[in-house]
């Protein structure tokens, strides 16, 4: 029983991080209708930024997180404003392709700049654990989970309560009407994408602490983010949390009871099933 509990705890902690990973993707998808295949690459970049802040300037990764987010926000803003905006009214497939191209470019640039070696961010407390009702919880994983959850809730509040957040939601629903209210789409789009990139960057920084990073992790992280975003639904950040937790627990359980190589099969298998049966996600839509 305690093994099961350990696995569930692992799954929840993993799930929180997964949710954060998927959040940026879901935001950009829901608001801009852009399916960003470079999302994983943005996570990867966030991890490297955090890594170099840590090894170069000795900044604790959790403290470096806001800086990482800022850097990725700026990058994302520029990317959207000056590149993605050029194709945004083209058929959806075009944005799929261009983000794919960007993914390839970022991956190869990262390989040239950082080499293909695996890296981990190892603050001094990296090896510390504490006990939670019999399960061993690494401190870094718990912190990562807490940060992920906090950011998700902050995003949710931002979208629901602030003026800018409402402008973003309005633009998502009706571009023409939003324009009539004085919303400038180009800026809102760029801001939203920047926000998505910042979230990806944060996820990357956290990922770098709990796991290993190299230039190639982008693709599978993108795929996983998709799975979560679709399973949880694109409606609200809370749905993404649910999706992330669900997938985290499923993967943990699968690794334990069926075998570690099957964890991915489980995630993607569920994704396929969800798409076929309920493309809007597992959560019921309340109109």
């Amino acid at each position: 029983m305690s093994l099961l509990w350990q696995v569930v705890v692992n799954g929840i902690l993993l799930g929180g991080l997964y949710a954060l990973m998927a959040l940026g993707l879901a935001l950009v998808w829901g608001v801009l209708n852009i399916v960003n295949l470079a999302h994983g690459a943005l996570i990867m970049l966030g991890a490297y930024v955090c890594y170099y802040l840590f090894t170069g300037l000795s900044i604790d990764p959790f403290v470096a997180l806001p800086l990482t987010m800022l850097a990725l926000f700026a990058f994302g803003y520029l990317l959207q404003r000056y590149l993605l905006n050029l194709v945004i009214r083209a058929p959806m497939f075009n944005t799929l392709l261009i983000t794919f191209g960007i993914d390839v470019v970022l991956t190869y640039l990262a390989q040239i700049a950082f080499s293909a070696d695996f890296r981990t961010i190892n603050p001094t407390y990296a090896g510390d654990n504490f006990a939670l009702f019999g399960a061993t919880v690494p401190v870094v994983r718990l912190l990562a989970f807490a940060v992920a959850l906090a950011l998700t809730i902050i995003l949710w509040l931002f979208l629901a309560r602030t003026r800018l957040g409402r402008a973003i939601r309005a633009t998502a629903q009706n571009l023409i009407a939003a324009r009539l209210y004085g919303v400038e789409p180009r800026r809102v789009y760029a801001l939203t994408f920047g926000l998505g990139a910042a979230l990806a960057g944060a996820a990357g920084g956290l990922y770098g602490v709990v796991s290993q990073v190299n230039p190639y992790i982008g693709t599978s992280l993108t795929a996983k983010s998709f799975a979560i975003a679709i399973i949880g639904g694109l409606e609200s950040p809370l749905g993404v949390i649910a999706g992330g937790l669900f997938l985290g627990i499923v993967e943990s359980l699968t690794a334990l009871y069926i075998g570690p190589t099957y964890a991915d099969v489980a995630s993607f298998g569920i994704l396929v099933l969800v798409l076929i049966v309920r493309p809007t996600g597992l959560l019921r839509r309340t109109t």
Partner: protein
Amino acid sequence: MAAAPWIASPSLIQFGISTLLLATLAQSWNIIGGYAGYASFGNSVFYGLGSYGTAIAMVQWHLPFGVGLALGAVLAVAFAVVLGLPVLRLRGHYFAICTLALAEVMIAIVSNVDIAGRNTGLVLPLLRGDALFYEMAFGLLVLTTLAVLWIARSRFGYGLMSIRENEEAAAVLGVDTTLYKVLAFALSGFFAALAGGIHAYWITFLDPVSAFDIGLNVKMIIMAVFGGPGSILGPVVGAFLLSGISEVLSTEISNLAGLFFGVVIVIAVVFMPRGLADLGRRFKQFGWHYFAENVRVHRL
């Protein structure tokens, strides 16, 4: 071009075989992605099924190559029909993502199947003579292109294109959209599987990750889209052009080749989203304005 194996160097022939197979893949994608408008990110599955079908037939059951090929093709078509029915109901990116997820799942599943040699893979009997493989690959490309030619001028092709342009309108005009989509998917899978079978026999070694190589999806899509989706020769031209340039670059630095691909995609999507075929057709009319026009129409 068919005479090439007798006059070219061995490495050029090898390049030729690879490129011919890639061109076939791009052309096969053209059927479901270019004509029917359903961008499949999972054609690598058909390729892999073709590879494994051929390999299993030859290694485990000692059947001749031709039978193996046929088995691989049948496997792929069956897969296309059975999975196509539910998956083709999805639109746009959902379809793309679902096929991508399927591609990922297949790798993991095949890694655990005994008859396929699990993770270690299979070793096929050796057949010497690249020239023969070259001719086979060439023949397959010709066959696939002829199929596309037929599609473009047939009632079936018109039906596919109407689905691509506006599926709802197609339905009320009497097009059986489900049947046609599944047929396109199956046809696409058929040719991809044949390419996979030839490839497996040629390199004589097969393992799940390389047979179901996800990167292939991307390559074939980019080649088809760059060349001109929905055109007859576009994907072939795209495949040869991009392969050729990538080959030249990778003899310099292999990273550059990958980078080159990425940059080409980005530029192409912005300035010539309908591929070379459309560029060729309309450049006479528009000149350099063609590029600016594409941007103007699609920007925010």
